[in-house]
């Protein structure tokens, strides 16, 4: 009984540890290549940046049994049709601004971040902007002067003035519009957009 059985021996577990780690990592690398390919801007899951020229909605898909982005016809942003390159530049400015202003330490983006302020994943489609006609103007005003245009819903939790310029605000709006078109596997569930009729 003095002999250590294989399953309790050090060398067995050492080899197992090495093989399991290497195997898992290899699978992760393969999946990473595939995931990055499937989520490059301009794919089914992550649309090209010029999607900001179009109407974006988010509806329940009965066949897939989940909420899905619905890309419709033309609905220009700031009354301008952007080329793919112009759109990418504008979204890029917006994305960079959200990082430089540290938005993620109050808000969540794609559900990740802090929980002091609302999720921004589908913020472009939020009913809080009342109607598609009023939306752009309200968003720009809110971003540039959040104290005066506060949207606290009675909680007193106001966004601080972050010194966002008009150009940056436009970038952020473009970024939010583009982000709302990403296929997020049905998250958030049950979200009713400002296009929804009820």
């Amino acid at each position, binding site marked *: 009984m003095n002999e250590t059985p294989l399953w309790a021996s050090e060398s067995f577990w050492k080899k197992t540890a090495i093989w*399991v780690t290497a195997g898992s990592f290899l699978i992760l690398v393969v999946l990473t290549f595939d995931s990055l390919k499937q989520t490059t801007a301009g794919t089914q899951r*992550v649309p090209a940046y010029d999607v900001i020229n179009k109407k974006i909605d988010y509806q329940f898909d009965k066949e897939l049994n989940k909420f899905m982005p619905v890309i419709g016809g033309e609905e220009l942003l700031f009354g301008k049709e952007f080329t793919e390159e112009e759109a990418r530049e504008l979204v890029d400015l917006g994305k960079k601004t959200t990082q430089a202003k540290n938005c993620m330490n109050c808000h969540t983006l794609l*559900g990740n971040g802090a929980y002091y302020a609302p999720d921004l994943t589908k913020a472009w489609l939020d009913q809080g902007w009342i109607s598609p006609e009023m939306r752009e103007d309200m968003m720009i005003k809110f971003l540039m002067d959040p104290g005066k245009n506060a949207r606290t*819903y009675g909680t007193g939790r106001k966004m601080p003035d972050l010194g966002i310029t008009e150009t940056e605000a436009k970038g952020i709006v473009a970024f939010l519009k583009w982000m709302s078109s990403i296929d997020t596997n049905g998250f958030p569930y049950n979200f009713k957009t400002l296009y929804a009729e009820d």
Partner: protein
Amino acid sequence: MKSGGLAGVIENAGVLVDRSRGYWQDFQNWVQLDSSRLSPGRQLAVKYFIVAVILFCAQILFGLLAALQFIFPGFLYEFLDFSVNRMVHINAMVIWMLYGFLGSIYWLLEDESGTEIVGLKYGIWAFWILTGAVALVVLVYLFVQIGAGEDSSLWLINEGREYIEAPRWADFGIVAVVLTFFYNVVATFSKGKWSGIAGVLTLDLVALAGLYVAGMFYMTNITHEQYWWWWVIHLWVEATWEVLVGVIMAWSLMKLLGVRRKIVETWLYIEVALMFGSGILGLGHHYFWIGTPEYWLTIGGFFSALEPIPLVAMVVHAVYDSGAHSFKTGNHPALAWIIAQAFGNFFGAGVWGFMHTLPQINLYTHGTQWSASHGHLAFFGAYATINIAFFYLAIQHWRGDVWMAGGIKHAWRWKWALGLLNVGVLGMTIALLIAGYEQSFVERAVEGSTWGGYFAAQSQPAFQSAMTWRLFFGLITASGLVLLVWDLLTIGKGEERKAEMPQQA
């Protein structure tokens, strides 16, 4: 200015320097720690521990400020906003834990390798460079806070990415410091002797440093950006850090209880196999909703559901060994914190993580206070506890290997610090869990995550009282921390009896 001009300023500054030097002298006389008892490698280790404790205090302070803002939103509005406090809160946490790990490794390195640290000089430089960089980053966080939507803001001020907000220049500093550290570890083991613990540690450090690089890029495409961002956060916290803790735990159990090397090293391999086997692909549970393909729902759900298994193994390991050695140890506070680690890691990371890791549940809990609840118990249970255990190991040696047990003078301090910190964090965890449940129901399930739904959930009495309880338990945690710092500075002072450290059977 009375004394007038530049000369006056210099004179005043001189007085100030003299006075603070006096205070420092008084402090050292009070603490009565004799650093000549420590080897040069361990003198470097305690430098890391000291900064770790200071950052731990910063973490709690800024956590309290952020907790207050949930209750009084006008508090420090547009002066130190929630975003700033929360960023310092979580960054201080990540950095103090890293400091604790680096210190712990430097502490055990000479003992484990049987030789002196090879590049100690570089290690000391790296320490000062890192500490200077951390101080600068925090000052910029507090006083500059944000920048314009340009690359320069991300390079100099803040990258705006949760947990790894440090500006890009600091990223390079961090990588350089970790590489220096890595060199010291490998060179020292190579000069001395290798062991199972040494091998696991070396491979883990390669992964730890390599993964950080994945988070050093700016991308317009938020799906890609968050994909790589999780490589750093998840593969650090749920894989490489856990293995690092396994290494530190293995060494500590040998020292504290006299467990045989063969046993701890076999356990370490089992833990590595289970930890990486579940944790690497468990990364998929962060890829449910960021735009990545649907197969992650299956892979992430399955493997992350397995993640608690190694943590069960670690509990069995720690508790079994403690029992097998009849809890005979020369350092009671350290062993108590090791036991707290085993359970805290299992409940905080394992159970609390499992509760919301399946995609069917995570659809409603993602991005709510559930994550905050899990985060508090997991970081504390898995990482704060082991670091605190190590602080007690270090202070004992620093005092000259004196007796440290339940019956020593002022033992109430370490016992109450242990109790208050654990009760405080557990209380915050439960309060946040209640808030998370409420938020999942009202905001996510019923209201569909609109802005109106978000604020409706935040206004519910259940949510608001949970936030008050969180602050209350935050204050309990803070009082525990004050007591802990006091105890670490004074425990064993004037104690003459030597500890009976167990010999390896």
